[in-house]
């Protein structure tokens, strides 16, 4: 198939071109194509001398729509194709064709075609005339060659690999069956749009028609030896018939030019690249891995004087040739109290046959929350230029914003961190607890529960009970003492009466015992002191606390003493006993009287 020009045309400008191979062999068929990027009203072909016109002119048209940055461009193109056959050797010139577009006349270029002697396609098939092979074109007649523009790239450098189909037979159709896996590479397809352009090339004296069927930009992702696998293409070729065929056979073979159509799969060669690592020497810390050429940075800010809480736009456009889609956001140290939103990234990246290039634009929206001066410091974009093997720094910035408004005023979202918190920034949280965790059902608060109120009320109840009980106890005890106090006199008189009977019977020992018992008993009951701990010494103290007059206590003790002496003293026993009896009686009566008076 002979080529159409790629549609690199611009609307508004009429381009009218003629194309044909510059070199053909005598007897070879080739195409002469006239192409125009507008709708022509008439087409006048030149006189074609030296060639036989096999067919044509056949007309075809195509419309393409392109959208670039939201603008739509519609391109129409028309082509007029002749199929020619060179009949004799020599150099021939094809005169320009004429065309009219919108009433204006245009002229195409003229072409020069050299016709060489000899090797018409038919001879190629004769070369492989051995039976059994005649159904396929040999690898000498048909092969795909993969070539890279460099075999020793740096890591990340753009390498362009083109796959050219070399043929000496007529190729009616081709399709790419299997693309290489490109393991270890980032790839971008940069094959030219439309029909591939062809040229002729002579290798070892043989003339080949060459068409580029696939072109790719690859970016090695690591250093070392990396291999690009072969590409596989399926072709439909026309093989000229070896034997003279009958007219009917020829008719059924379906070939337009008398050959047989054959399907054939062709594989390209593999390409091995020796990828160099980027030099560690002089590598800036800000280098983010971009390898390419002709990079430039354009940074601009839409205003530098504004009010607090107003938005300001910072635009950073990075232009260059390299793996633009993998470009990393430049690191900018924005001031802490400037609120910066994630940038809006827009790309204008072109895949052209010479590689990937274009512009990536970062659009930052920034809002100063306080007044004052904000300085966005100078930053830089660093890339590695493989041609010079050097790191290139492209500095941009610095920008100073003058923001009117209260400086340091805490806005709704202050970005500042207080001093106290800064100290904490470096610390980590403490470890979890693993021991003695007591789980309990949710909502079981102790406060306000029945148990709580019970525990609050219980002490009060216990307290009240305790107080009442203790009071009663004390009262009871007090009553007993009172009773004994009241009965003391009676008891003493009873004992004295008993002593009187002993006196009458002259029973001396019993009499004194009874007197003692009466006196001590009386004292014990009156003073609320148990008999067991009573003695003459504490009797005096007890009398004192009861405020009994001295004479009375003295006489009481004297009576006790007399009793003791009288018991063992010699002399008239009966008189003494009577005297003691009288004395004891008197003492008790006077004390009783005295205490009675005090109680009232």
């Amino acid at each position, binding site marked *: 198939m002979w080529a159409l020009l790629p549609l690199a045309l611009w609307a508004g400008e009429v381009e009218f071109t003629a194309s044909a191979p510059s070199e053909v062999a005598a007897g070879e068929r080739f195409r002469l194509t006239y192409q125009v990027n507008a709708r022509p009203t008439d087409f006048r072909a030149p006189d074609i001398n030296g060639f036989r016109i096999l067919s044509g002119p056949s007309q075809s048209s195509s419309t393409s729509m392109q959208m670039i940055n939201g603008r739509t461009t519609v391109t129409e193109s028309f082509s007029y194709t002749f199929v020619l056959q060179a009949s004799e050797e020599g150099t021939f010139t094809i005169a320009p064709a004429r065309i009219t577009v919108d009433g204006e006349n245009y002229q195409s270029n003229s072409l020069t075609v050299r016709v060489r002697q000899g090797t018409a396609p038919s001879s190629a098939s004769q070369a492989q005339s051995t039976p059994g092979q005649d159904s396929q074109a040999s690898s000498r007649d048909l092969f795909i060659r993969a070539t890279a523009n460099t075999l020793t790239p740096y890591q990340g450098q753009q390498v362009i690999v083109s796959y050219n189909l070399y043929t000496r037979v007529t190729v009616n159709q081709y399709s790419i069956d299997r693309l290489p896996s490109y393991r270890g590479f980032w790839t971008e397809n940069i094959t030219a749009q439309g029909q591939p352009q062809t040229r002729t090339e002579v290798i070892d004296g043989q003339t080949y028609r060459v068409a580029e069927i696939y072109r790719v930009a690859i970016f090695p992702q690591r250093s070392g030896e990396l291999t690009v696998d072969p590409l596989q293409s399926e072709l439909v070729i026309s093989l000229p018939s070896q034997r003279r065929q009958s007219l009917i056979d020829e008719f059924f073979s379906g070939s337009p030019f008398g050959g047989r159509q054959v399907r054939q799969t062709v594989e390209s060669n593999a390409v091995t690249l020796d990828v160099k690592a980027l030099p560690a020497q002089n590598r800036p810390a800000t280098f983010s891995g971009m390898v390419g050429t002709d990079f430039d940075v354009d940074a601009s800010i839409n205003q530098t004087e504004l009010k607090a809480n107003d938005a300001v736009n910072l635009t950073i456009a990075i232009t260059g040739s390299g793996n633009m889609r993998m470009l990393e956001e430049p690191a900018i140290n924005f001031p802490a109290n400037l609120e910066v939103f994630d940038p809006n990234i827009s790309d204008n990246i072109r895949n052209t046959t010479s590689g990937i290039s274009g512009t990536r634009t970062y659009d930052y929206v920034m809002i100063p929350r306080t007044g004052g001066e904000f300085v966005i410091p100078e930053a830089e974009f660093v890339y590695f230029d493989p041609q010079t093997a050097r790191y290139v720094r492209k500095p941009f910035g610095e920008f100073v914003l003058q923001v009117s408004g209260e400086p340091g005023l*805490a806005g*709704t*979202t*202050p*970005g*500042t*961190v*207080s001093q106290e*918190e*800064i100290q*904490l*920034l470096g*610390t*980590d*949280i*403490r*470890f*979890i*607890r*693993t021991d003695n*965790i*007591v*789980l*309990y*059902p*949710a909502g*079981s*608060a*102790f*406060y*306000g529960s029945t*148990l*709580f109120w019970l*525990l*609050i009320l219980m*002490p*009060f109840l*216990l*307290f009240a009970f*305790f*107080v009442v009980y*203790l009071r009663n106890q004390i009262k009871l005890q007090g009553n007993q003492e009172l009773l004994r106090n009241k009965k003391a006199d009676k008891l003493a008189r009873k004992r004295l009466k008993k002593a009187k009977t002993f006196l009458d019977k002259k029973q001396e020992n019993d009499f004194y015992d009874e007197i003692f018992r009466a006196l001590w008993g009386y004292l014990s009951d009156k003073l609320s002191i148990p008999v067991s701990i009573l003695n003459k010494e504490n009797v005096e103290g007890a009398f004192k606390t009861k405020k009994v007059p001295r004479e009375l206590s003295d006489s009481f003790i004297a009576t006790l003493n007399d009793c003791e002496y009288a018991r063992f003293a010699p002399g008239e026993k009966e008189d003494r006993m009577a005297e003691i009896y009288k004395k004891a009686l008197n003492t008790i009566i006077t004390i009783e009287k005295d205490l009675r008076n005090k109680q009232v």
Partner: protein
Amino acid sequence: MNRYITLILLLLFQHSFAATPEELLEEANEAYTRSEYNYAAELYEQILTEGMVSADLYYNLGNAYFKSNKLGPAIVNFERALRLRPSDEDASHNLAVARSRIVDSTEQRPQLFYERWWKAAYSLQGSDGWAITSIILIIAFLAATSAYLFSKTVVWKKVSFYFMLLFFITGTLSLVFAQKQYNRITSEKEAIIMQARVTAKSSPSAQSSDLFLMHEGTKVTIRNGLGEWKEISLPNGSVGWIKNESMEII
């Protein structure tokens, strides 16, 4: 008497002896130790869905969320741990670390010294802690009262009277604090912003004008609610409406 205390404790905590939550807790702690923070958080949450709580559980869950870089949930759980045990020093520390990582740092309205002291005093314990303290102090008060009533010497009467006064005042305060902390948990609603950016609106409708922007982890107080909207206020006094789903109530 000891037997009865044990019985009461058993009744109170009987659920904790069910095997599953304890095992979950152990597994979660192990996961955390192995740095599988997401898994640990999941397990802790599972314990919570089974209806079991504990200040330590919330503390651990907060840690797990913090380690998996979920600041909002981490802060919510540290706050919950502190609600149950205000004196938890580790939880306050971790909360401070988590707060230092969030975007907003709304300033607290400066408090007067007595407000600060009052807050520091009632924050010493949770409501249950204060409840137990008040019971102990009431018992002490009654003991002192009996000592006063039945002591026979003047010195004892004086001493027990002062103790009586002391226990009465502290016991009453404990009760007040218990009630205060109880109110804080049950009625005073605070919430933590859970979405990266939340814009507070002037009224409960998406069309109303924007008032201010908040970021994940910010603590707000809920004042009012209407449908899927809540009126919230910030410590600095700003008030606005946000949607229920953008925050989590502590």
